């Protein structure tokens, strides 16, 4: 019976091509806009760590005094990060922040670049699954015994060394020579969950240097620096021993047992610090969040975006109301035919179903066209507003979602017209032709 209805629906659509096209257009525009915003929304709220989400844990400490901030800060102080690095409970761990350095090669004609640089530990690359094309991360010993080594990404390697294997070559950062030990593949998780302090939707840094160099090279922080305490900081060593929060801290655990063990370790750390006069608040504690929890706490999907999705949903609704009117006109014009069908044995349910199939078919067409709109508008958005590519590719699930939403939406719009046509009394339409 379904194929009979499909056949009837197709004939009906062919019979009124203009009206049908109008309906397909109405729904496709609604779907196009909805899918565009949903796509952006989904990419913004996607968990970029995948199945490692539970293994990667962000660490926060309530180290402030009792009348200071009323929440955990997203970052740690240098002294806490320094102490935490000594724990041997986590499988891997890294302290990190972003700085900016002038990049120079051995080529004297090369105009120096100012690049942002991530100052981090060797574990960073394994923890966040950074793929390498050449070489690897610096040795673990470098995390304690500072060595001037550097990891760069594919794009910078292309720019500086024409994409050749540059391992062992020298890169000058703020005029200091660093030996290149690794070149990473282009890699930029979105959102950039391991550092959301300066916006979650930027690209990953191009250059990575050892955290152990920070006190030696006195790298300035290009990220957020927040302090609850009034302290005068005149030198880098004062900065390192201050209560300023500016270091991101992540650990990797294998399972919940290890996570609990680490939580215990941190609890003892907090108690120990309290003996030293720090963490002077009844709420002093440590907080661990996996990637999913981390994105949630930091509201990585901005409120604006939710409103945008809501608005586009509203727009879809307007398109549907429009379609409802067109469907009603179309169906009611067919009342005499429906009268005949009813008289010769079609039940109300069968007439209803017949019309819903037609509506569904129109919806399907609208969904496909809507995908084209969405694809077009996303390309346009990225071209005109120079958005990151990550935000403007049409997600694969959308190819399934768009027709599904379109059909569902069309069916909703079709319920009333289909109900009207199936519930009118057939005898009224049989009398005259």
């Amino acid at each position, binding site marked *: 019976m379904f194929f009979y209805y499909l056949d009837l629906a197709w004939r009906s659509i062919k019979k009124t091509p203009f009206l049908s096209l109008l309906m397909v257009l109405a729904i496709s525009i609604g779907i196009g806009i909805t899918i565009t915003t949903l796509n952006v929304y989904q990419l913004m709220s996607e968990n970029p760590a995948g199945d490692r989400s539970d293994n990667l844990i962000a660490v926060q400490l309530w180290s402030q005094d009792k009348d200071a901030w009323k929440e955990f800060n997203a970052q740690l102080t240098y002294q806490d990060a320094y102490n935490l690095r000594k724990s041997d409970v986590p499988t891997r761990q890294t302290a990190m922040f972003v700085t900016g350095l002038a990049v120079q090669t051995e080529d004297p004609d090369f105009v120096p670049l100012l690049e942002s640089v991530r100052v981090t530990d060797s574990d960073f690359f394994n923890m966040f699954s950074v793929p390498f094309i050449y070489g690897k991360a610096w040795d673990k010993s470098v995390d304690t015994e500072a060595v001037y080594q550097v990891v760069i990404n594919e794009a910078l390697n292309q720019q500086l060394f024409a994409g050749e294997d540059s391992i062992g070559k020298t890169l000058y950062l703020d005029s200091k020579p660093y030996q290149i030990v690794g070149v990473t593949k282009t890699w930029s998780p979105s959102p950039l969950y391991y550092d959301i302090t300066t916006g979650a939707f930027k690209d990953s840094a191009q250059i990575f240097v050892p955290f152990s160099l920070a006190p030696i090279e006195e790298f300035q922080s290009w990220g957020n620096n927040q302090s609850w305490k009034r302290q005068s900081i005149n030198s880098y060593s004062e900065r390192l021993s201050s209560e300023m929060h500016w270091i991101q801290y992540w650990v990797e655990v294998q399972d919940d047992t290890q996570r609990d063990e680490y939580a215990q370790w941190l609890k003892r750390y907090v108690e120990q610090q309290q003996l030293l006069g720090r963490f002077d608040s009844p709420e002093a504690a440590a907080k661990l969040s996996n990637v999913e929890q981390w994105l949630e706490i930091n509201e990585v999907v901005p409120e604006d975006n939710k409103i945008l999705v809501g608005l586009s949903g509203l727009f879809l609704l307007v398109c549907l109301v429009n379609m409802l009117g067109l469907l009603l006109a179309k169906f009611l014009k067919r009342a005499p035919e429906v009268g005949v*069908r009813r008289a010769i044995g079609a039940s109300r349910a069968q007439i209803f179903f017949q019309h819903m199939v037609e509506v569904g078919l129109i919806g399907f067409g609208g969904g496909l066209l809507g995908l084209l709109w969405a694809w077009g508008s996303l390309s346009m958005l990225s071209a005109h507003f120079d958005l990151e590519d990550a935000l403007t590719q049409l997600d694969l699930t959308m190819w399934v979602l768009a027709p599904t939403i379109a059909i569902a939406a069309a069916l909703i719009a079709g319920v009333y017209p289909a109900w009207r046509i199936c519930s009118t009394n057939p005898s009224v339409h049989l009398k005259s032709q």
Partner: protein
Amino acid sequence: MLSMKNISKVFQTDLVETHALRDFNLEVQEGEFVAVTGPSGSGKTTFLNIAGLLEGFTHGDYFLDGVNISNLNDNKSATIRNEKIGFIFQGFNLIPDLNLAENVEVPLRYRGFNAAERKRRVQHALEQVGLAARMKHLPSQLSGGQQQRVAIARALAGEPRFLLADEPTGNLDSMMARQVMELLENINKAGTTIIMVTHDAELARRAQRNIQIVDGQVCDFTMYQGGARQQGMGTKADKPHLVTDADKPSDESEQAQTEQAAS
């Protein structure tokens, strides 16, 4: 076969209540050919629609084939319409976008027959009305008489026990009307019960039994006395003997019918 007891039908519109049928009683036996006449607006179509389960009624009891119709849900009444009843309308009411075969196929689709069975029945039904050769034509390519024959084929395809026709010859000239009438007679001979509303007194006379609806009631009751079907209907020799409640002379009654038909 069909039994209506004290049926009444009231149409309620904004201002007026129309009593289309009042205290309507009728029994129709299996195999009968009943012609229904009556003045315009007297309730003939209303009666036929109720008989065909297209419309509900306000009061009374209606049994079709022993089934009480008063409290059937939509699905059940659709099934009965589909399996037991065939409809023929004055305006033919073919679906214009479908070709003849597809039109005849419609009730079979709802019946749930498979493709082979549908094809066989469509072929058979169109052969019965002599239009099997034009299966792929659209209704608009046929004359009125031919269209009505297709409509009859559509009604026949489901092999109904019961055929309801509302002025089936109303839009046809007398030649065509006679053809259609002959077709109906043959169908009746094959065992199908037929109720036909008509304004044409001559056609009505050819039926085995005549009833007249006046003002929503079965007012005039006309019937052949015994085995009419075997005697061959529709010849002048078989002029009906009229039995009237009001004891009117038969000629006068016939006169009245003819006048109504003419008006």
